[in-house]
């Protein structure tokens, strides 16, 4: 593009020629012109000033020329006057100035005071505002606290109301319950009354039935038997029947008691001494216990007159002192032994049911009061009542003397016990103290009670048997014999089931049977035993009598 180059070069050349050469010069020239014009202006001004000054000057000169024409004195006077006036003016002005400065000073002082006051006021103000702030804060805090308390108060009120409601509810319920309670109580008393009435009616009915039965049988008996002193037995029966007491075994009401004449069977029970013998209420079993620590059960076949061993109950740790069967059909046998304990077996399974420990010494006697209540008396001078359901001793009666035998009066636990200290004690079921005591001549070795619980046979060491009437607690009969000697503390005497006879064994091996009404010995059974007879038992039917001697022989006596 050489045309571009040519053009460019021409342009550069032109600029150099036209501009560069003259630019500076023109600039400087213009500046000079400016300065020149400024100077011109100033010059003209100054000329004007000069002119005006000159004018003034000439005016002044004219004036001075005109002034110079006046006389001198007047001039001086006027000058002096002017001077005086000027001086006075100056004085007044100075005085005014002084006053003004004083005012200024006082005013400035006042201002200062006001400033000080203002400062102090401001400080007070600050303090007050601070206090105000702190008070406000406290107020806020107090408000918060009070609102908090209010809330708490409200909640407490609510709770209180709720509790009140609950309380009224509970009160209502309580009233309802009281009402129902009273109602139920009334019902219960009514029912109890009804029950009692029903029982009374039943009892009366029963009694009437018995009476009818007795009458019937008496009529029958009148025809066959002559050896019975029926009037007395009937009277005793009647008297005993009129007691209204409930009989223990109503099934075996009427028994035919026979005085045994000869020995039907005899057998050796065990290897050691025999201490106890007892009939099962059914009459088919005999239990013996002795110092072999076992209780032997023997089956009795009455018709054939045979005794067979049935089974053996073990478990005692020492000599068995007494045996009792329960009368309520529970098939329990109770044996107490010299190992301080009584034991209960079941006859059906021959299993040891209970072991009642608690006595401190040998247990001499134990009897079933009910199927679940047992009374035991021991050498430790106490009697204990045991509850078989709890297997606990429920009561302990402190007798004060060894208890050799006891009998139960009724199902509630009233007892009669015979002791070493010649006393027969009657115990009340309710409290633990003796209701009554009966003093005899010698230590009591055994007690027996008749079925109606009217007569008590006590055998004592003074070789006598005493028959005590329980209503008056009076000895009505004393049985003795020349050969009858009681040489042991545990010789047992029994009453026949109809209470016509009393039987006991002597120390020479003879069994004595007394008639309770006459008091005379009815029979003496001897020649079978050789040693002291420890215990006798009468068959529940009355047909047999069994006795056991110390030298392991037991004999069944019958007709």
């Amino acid at each position: 593009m050489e045309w571009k180059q040519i053009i460019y070069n021409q342009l550069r050349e032109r600029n150099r020629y036209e501009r560069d050469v003259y630019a500076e010069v023109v600039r400087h020239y213009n500046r000079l012109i400016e300065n020149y014009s400024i100077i011109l202006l100033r010059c003209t001004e100054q000329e004007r000033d000069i002119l005006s000054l000159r004018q003034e000057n000439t005016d002044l000169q004219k004036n001075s020329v005109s002034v110079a024409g006046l006389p001198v004195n007047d001039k001086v006077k006027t000058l002096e006057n002017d001077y005086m006036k000027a001086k006075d003016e100056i004085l007044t002005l100075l005085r005014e100035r002084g006053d003004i400065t004083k005012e200024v000073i006082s005013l400035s002082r006042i201002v200062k005071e006001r400033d000080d006051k203002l400062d102090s006021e401001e400080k007070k103000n600050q303090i007050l505002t601070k206090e105000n702030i702190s008070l406000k804060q406290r107020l806020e805090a107090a408000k918060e606290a009070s609102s908090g308390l209010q809330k708490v108060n409200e909640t407490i009120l609510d709770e209180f109301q709720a509790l009140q409601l609950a309380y009224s509810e509970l009160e209502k319920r309580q009233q309802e319950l009281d009402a129902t309670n009273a109602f139920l109580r009334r019902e219960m008393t009514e029912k109890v009354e009804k029950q009692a009435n029903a029982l009374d009616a039943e009892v009366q009915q029963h009694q009437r039935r018995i009476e009818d039965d007795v009458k019937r049988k008496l009529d029958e008996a009148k025809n066959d038997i002559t050896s019975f002193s029926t009037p007395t037995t009937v009277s005793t029966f009647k008297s005993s029947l009129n007691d209204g007491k409930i009989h223990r075994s109503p099934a075996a009401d009427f028994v035919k008691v026979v005085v045994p004449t000869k020995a039907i069977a005899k057998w050796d029970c065990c290897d050691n001494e025999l201490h106890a013998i007892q009939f099962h209420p059914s009459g088919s079993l005999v239990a013996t216990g002795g110092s072999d620590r076992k209780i032997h059960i023997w089956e009795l076949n009455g018709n054939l007159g045979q005794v067979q061993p049935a089974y053996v109950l073990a478990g005692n740790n020492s000599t068995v002192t007494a045996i009792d069967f329960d009368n309520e059909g529970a098939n329990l046998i109770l044996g107490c032994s010299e190992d301080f304990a009584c034991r209960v077996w079941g006859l059906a399974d021959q299993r040891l049911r209970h072991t009642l420990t608690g006595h401190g010494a040998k247990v001499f006697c134990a009897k079933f009061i009910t199927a679940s209540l047992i009374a035991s008396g021991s050498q430790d001078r106490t009697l204990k009542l045991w509850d078989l359901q709890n297997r606990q001793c429920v009561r302990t009666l402190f007798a004060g003397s060894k208890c050799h035998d006891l009998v139960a009066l009724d199902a509630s636990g009233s007892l009669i016990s015979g002791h070493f200290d010649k006393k027969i004690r009657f115990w009340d079921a309710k409290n633990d103290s003796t209701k009554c005591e009966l003093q005899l001549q010698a230590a009591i070795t055994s007690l027996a009670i008749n079925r109606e619980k009217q007569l008590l046979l006590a055998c004592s060491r003074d070789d006598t048997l005493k028959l005590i009437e329980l209503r008056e607690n009076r000895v009505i009969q004393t049985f003795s014999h020349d050969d009858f000697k009681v040489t042991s503390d545990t010789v047992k005497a029994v009453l026949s089931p109809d209470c016509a006879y009393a039987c006991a064994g002597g120390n020479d091996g003879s069994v004595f049977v007394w008639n309770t009404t006459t008091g005379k010995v009815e029979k003496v059974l001897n020649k079978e035993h050789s040693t002291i007879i420890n215990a006798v038992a009468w068959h529940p039917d009355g047909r047999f009598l069994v006795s056991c001697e110390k030298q392991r022989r037991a004999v069944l006596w019958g007709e």
Partner: protein
Amino acid sequence: MSSSIDDKDITRELWQSRLPICFVLSDEDISKVNRSELPEPLYLMLARHIYFPCIIDKIHRYYSIYFKENLNDPTNNVNLTNLWLEYESIPLKWHYPIGVLYDLYASSMASSSARLPWQITVHLSKFPEGELIRFPDKDAIKAHYMSTLKEADALKHKGQIIGDMQERDHKQLWNSLLQDKYESFWNINNKLMAFTDNLQYFRYIPFRIYILDKPFIQKLFSPYDADEGKGLTLNDLLHFALNHEAQCELMANEKRILNTNIDDYQIVTHGVQPPLHTPLQWLSEHFSYPDNFLHICLIEKRT
């Protein structure tokens, strides 16, 4: 000498053109000065692409000092509204750019007595009513500039670009011209140098050819020969324009016909003589005056 020359360098050189001009008060006016001092000549460095009315304020201020009393006197002939400029008894038209006037009348090629600084006589009286219109104020000269610009754009782009421009762009063009701000001016002027209608050249080239004692020649001329598929040059333009003008004169039965021989002329624009084979399109884009016209002076060579 050099590597490729950027078009920007050329346009910058154009922008930085300055002519030293000396304004001298006319003799009869000097005699009217009622001060003891006579006004010194006023020297100014003026750009080639601006117009005389742009600096009329300066001239007013300068001479009003000297004519203070006279100015207030209505009967006086000396009046700033009567101001007119003259060079060698040629009253200068105020709507031509200064550079054009100089190249036509006062350059070394035009006048044998030409020398720098260009001495212009300032007249304050005896306004030549028949030949000149009185100097306008700033708004009038701006309006003249804008209308010339619109005419150029009409030729180049059917007036589309100047029509899309906002008022503030027009103002920016004129103000940067007055304040001599090259960047600010060319920011907007570049938009006017763009192409439209998918052409790679202007539709017609805006140009005016000035010959002494004749009105300027302006024709419709495209910078691209579609038939031959090449860009046209300055030579082609001048040929076409002169011949066309000569024909018009012939048709009008003018007494003196234009000399159409290019070699008899010196082709001057912006004070330089570009080579005749310079591409016309390029000239229009980069060598136009700020009013987007190519002002070309044809000066008869002196024999």
